[in-house]
């Protein structure tokens, strides 16, 4: 499997999932704005023909926006703020399933774990093979990244 195949799938699938899950419209960008200090990072491990992890990183404000759209409330609603991390993790969970489905189809050998969400970038961010940055239509940056290796047959 070529590296650019995985990243091509991630680049194409992330905006679709953001739109389907949370009505967030995003486009890839080669010149993303720097993140502020209040960053949320989600990661999820997957196993199967490939083993690795997927990552989503964005601001707390954007994560709250995801929750707001899912819950049908305003972004400054206390529920949206409270469930921002939950919404980011669930979005990554769905993205992981969609990426694996796109790469391998509905094979039974693909499994993935539970999403983890932290206030800071994941410790293994330095290991990311590649990251795709997106800008949402309301000006938020969302990074989708992946690190993986081919599993021995």
């Amino acid at each position, binding site marked *: 499997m070529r590296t650019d195949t995985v990243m091509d799938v991630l680049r194409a699938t992330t905006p679709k999932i953001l739109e389907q899950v949370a009505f967030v419209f995003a486009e890839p960008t080669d010149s993303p704005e720097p993140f502020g200090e209040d960053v949320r990072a989600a990661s999820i491990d997957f196993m199967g023909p490939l083993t690795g992890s997927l990552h989503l990183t964005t601001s707390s404000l954007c994560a709250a926006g995801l929750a707001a759209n899912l819950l049908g409330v305003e972004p400054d609603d206390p529920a949206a703020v409270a469930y921002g991390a939950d919404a980011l993790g669930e979005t990554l969970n769905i993205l992981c399933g969609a990426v694996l489905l796109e790469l391998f189809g*509905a094979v*039974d050998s693909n499994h993935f774990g*539970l999403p983890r969400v932290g206030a800071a970038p994941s410790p293994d961010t330095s290991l990311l093979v590649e990251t795709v940055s997106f800008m949402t239509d309301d000006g938020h940056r969302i990074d989708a990244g992946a690190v993986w290796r081919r599993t021995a047959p």
Partner: protein
Amino acid sequence: MALRVLVVDDSAVVRAVVKKAISMCGVEVGTLYEAGDGGAALEILSRHEVDIVFSDLSMPGIDGHALVARMAEGESTKHIPIVIISAAPNVQTHLEDGCPAAVQAYIRKPFRPEDFRAILASVLPKVGRPPHAN
């Protein structure tokens, strides 16, 4: 009698969205229970009568697979229809490969509210319920 529903997912946001989707199906929902994992679901099932369970698969503690197995073993729970909701790309294999008969259908995330309407229309008549309130 209004439908008694149990929604099991470790994401509170997903539980809220599922509840909203079910409420949009035209089904008269009486009590809508929530559980964050299989253990909490089994606790609810031990105390309350439930007509249908919507459950995620990947959860901490007792996950969806174990919940389905435990419900299949319970005299009072083995006939409750279960609808699996999961982002797993292979979710349909749980229906095809030796899954307890109570698992009636699956919904792959991301889902649409219409998915629930179709599932309820299919499942509810099997348990003697009309698919719609009117």
